[in-house]
Every structure is written in C-alpha cells, then in structure tokens.
C-alpha cells in the first residue's frame, strides 16, 4: 500500500528486574499510517516470533485510551509526541517514513521494570489504599439538589476523576514525582461534600505513602500536565496541587 512506512525502532530490552537492560535496534517495514503505536508493536512482535526471538513485553489492555495500562516513553515523551493521548491512541501517521523511534519504559525508582517495557506501578495502588476513598458508604446517587455542590467544584472534581493512573506524570517529571496523580486522587474527593470530611487525614496518609514509595518532590515545572493523556487535568493541575497542599496542614 502506498504511504506505508519503514522505520527503525530502538527498544529497551530487559530480561527482568535484576538484570541490566539495553536498547536494541529493530527495523520494521511496511507500517500503515493508520495503525496505532501498539499495533505497530504487534507487527514487530510477530516478526520477532517468526525469527525465533523473544517478543517485546509491553503493557496494554483496553487499547481505547481509557484504562491507563499502556505506558511507553517514546522519543523522550511519555505516550509519544502528541498531547492528550495514550500510547494506544497514538497513530503511526504521527511519524514519517525513515524515522528512528526510541521506546523506553517509564523510568522511576517507584516504578521498577518488570520486563522490557513493562513496569510495576503497584506503588500507585498502595497510595490509593492509604485513603483514596471515602471510608463510609455514601449511599446511592443523590436526588438532584439534595446535596448542593457548586457547578465549578463539580466540574473540577470530575476533571480530577479523569485521571486513569497511567503514570505518565511520574515518567515525565524530572524528579519522578507523583504529585499530579496524588493531587488528582485527593481533589476528586476533597472537592465534594462526601469527601471533604476526611480531606486532611487523606492527604497526609497518601502523601506519607507517596514519600515512602520513593517518588521525587514536585518542583512545579508543569511537565506532568503537558504529558497527561487526559488533557483536561491540564487546566486544573496547579489547582489540584494547591487543594492538596492546603489540606495538608489543615486541622
């Protein structure tokens, strides 16, 4: 087919957490611009299997941009060159014939490499387990206007809840800080009446776990919000950080 591309991939290969990894070069041919980045990796893996080589391990699940499982650092950017999309929603039309593409796993002490491009993001789960919930049953959805919530707050909480926990914020932060993730998880609850009650306790517990997991400190460079695949968080990230920092010393 016309318009198909030949590319050179440099992919991080690493057997397991203990062994050292390295970038390995693979040529791939005849890649359709309509393929997603992950489909291009499927092509590479089929090629590797036919050659009797070990396929590249990479994370993916929904391939619809909603689960947050896919996680590749492509040419120095989390989820690749486009803003507001996950790797599975990145299409090969964003690249040109003859390009060399470097693909690396998320790099953070708190996200150890399991194999190749797969990293262990259970540090996020442990942070959530420390308070990313409301500890009583708040019942069914309320009748309209039963619990008045200002529209701005409702909108902000909703934007925060758009976080899919993919870890791109950590991957791109020069300090591997988890501030965007944690502040989104804090704010989606703290902004609403049901979540407000435990706000301070929640922030403190989640921040403590965040520090324990070995994430770095936020220096407000703003890189996280640029790479966040859920673009809407962009508008509010600073706000979420503040929500979190303000709640921290309250009480």
């Amino acid at each position, binding site marked *: 087919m016309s318009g198909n591309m030949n590319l050179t991939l*440099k992919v*991080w290969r690493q057997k397991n957490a203990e062994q050292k990894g390295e*970038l390995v070069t693979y040529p791939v041919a005849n890649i359709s611009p309509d393929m997603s980045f992950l489909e291009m990796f499927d092509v590479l893996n089929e090629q590797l299997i036919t050659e009797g080589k070990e396929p590249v391990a990479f994370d993916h699940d929904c391939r619809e941009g909603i689960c947050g499982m896919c996680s590749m*650092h492509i*040419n*120095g*950017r*989390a989820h690749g060159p486009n803003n507001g999309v996950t790797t599975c929603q990145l299409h090969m039309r964003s690249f040109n014939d003859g390009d060399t593409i*470097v693909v*690396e796993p998320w*790099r*953070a*002490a*708190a996200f150890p490499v399991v194999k190749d491009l797969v990293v262990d993001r259970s540090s996020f789960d442990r942070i959530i387990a420390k308070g990313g919930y409301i500890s009583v049953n708040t019942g069914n959805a309320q009748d309209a206007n039963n619990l008045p919530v200002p529209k701005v707050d409702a909108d902000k909480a909703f934007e925060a809840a758009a976080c899919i926990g993919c870890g791109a914020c950590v991957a*791109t932060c*020069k*300090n*591997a*800080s988890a501030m965007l993730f944690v502040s989104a998880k804090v704010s989606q609850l703290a902004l609403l009446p049901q979540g407000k009650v435990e706000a301070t306790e929640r922030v*403190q*517990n989640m*921040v*403590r776990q*965040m*520090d324990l997991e*070995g*994430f*770095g*400190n*936020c*220096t*407000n*460079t*703003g*890189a996280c919000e*640029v*790479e966040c695949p859920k673009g809407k968080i962009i508008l509010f990230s*600073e*706000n979420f*950080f*503040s*929500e*979190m*920092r*303000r709640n*921290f*010393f309250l009480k």
Partner: protein
Amino acid sequence: MSNSELFTSSIAKKYVMALTGLFLISFLVIHCTINSLIFVNDGGETFNEAAHFMSHNIVIRILEVGLFFGLVLHMVQSLILTLKNRKARPVAYAVAPSNESSKWYARSMGILGSLLLLFLVVHMSNFWVPTKQAVFADLEHNSFEAMKTVFAEWYFVAIYLVGVGSLSYHLMHGFQSAFQSLGLNHKKYTPVIKTVGFWFSIIVPAIFAAMPLAIYLGVIE
C-alpha cells in the same frame, strides 16, 4: 501523621523552600533599591549614606543574621530535595524529556542556584567582607569607591553579568513556584502573581546588571 512527620514530608520541605525563597526575594528588593542610589550620580554620596545606615543599624544587623540563616536553609533544603529527586530516577532516559513539556530553567534550578552560590562567594569577598572589616575596625568605608575599584576590571563585570543572569532565570521559575508550593493558587490572583514574577525577574536583575556596566563604561563617576 505525627507532627514530626508532618514537617519532614515532601510537601513541608517545599514549604520551607518557598518561604525562604520569598524571604530572599524581599531582601533583593531592599538591596536593589539601596544600590540604585548610585544612579543619582553624585559621586556616591547618597549611596554611601544609605550604605552606612545599613551597616550600622541594629534592626538591619539582626535581619542580616536572619538572611544568612534563610539562605543556608534554602541551600541545605534544596540539596536534600535534589538528592532525593536523583534517587527517584536511578536509570536515566536515553532520550530525556525536553523543552516540549517544561521550561529549561524550571528544570535547572539546582544548576542556576549553584551558579548563584559561586557568584555570591565572589560578591561577598568583593563587598561584604571589606565592609565588615571596616565596621569592626571602626573605620569609615567608602562603598562607592569599592564599587568603582571592582567594576574597573572587565572580568568582574563579566562575572557579575553571569551572576545576575542566573538570578533572572532562577527567579523566573522560583517566584511563581514559591506561591504554588505554598498552595496559594487562585483563578484570579495566580495569573497576577505570574505576571509580577515575570517582570520582577527581568527588571531587578536588569537594574543590578546596569550597575557594573554603568561604572565600567564611566557613565557613573
């Protein structure tokens, strides 16, 4: 969370960075104002009077000690934070995240700060040390003459320009970041803070840069 933990957490450490940073910014305002008096161009008379007041007033002297501790705290804390941040990413990217997602100076606060520290060593030995020596020996110190001697040398002028250049970029990120670290974010006021911070980090260093230049070029005598 226990109280001690509260103050060693990553959030609290950034509070310290922000508060000391803002304190140092307030010092810059005073330092810049006083030194601008050389532009009166009266042979340094007004400036020397102000300098004499600053080096002999008891309140200012106490604040000076506070300033010293603020600076040390700012440096020590940043060192602790930087080391922790380094540890947070043990394996570097082959292709590092670039300017597409953040400003270079926001990512280089440590390097800019270190340049500033080197500059401060030169700056203190040029002016602060001789002033102190004179005060302790109960001698009159002509700060304006001292400036003229130092800024007669092109290499000092060059060092000072690099120094205030680093200051400018350090402030460009630091000014607004300090408010952010304190959790002070507001729909209406944050854009104001950012604009003020931007102009502050251009105007103040520019005034500082004008001093060695004006003296070197003989505009002020």
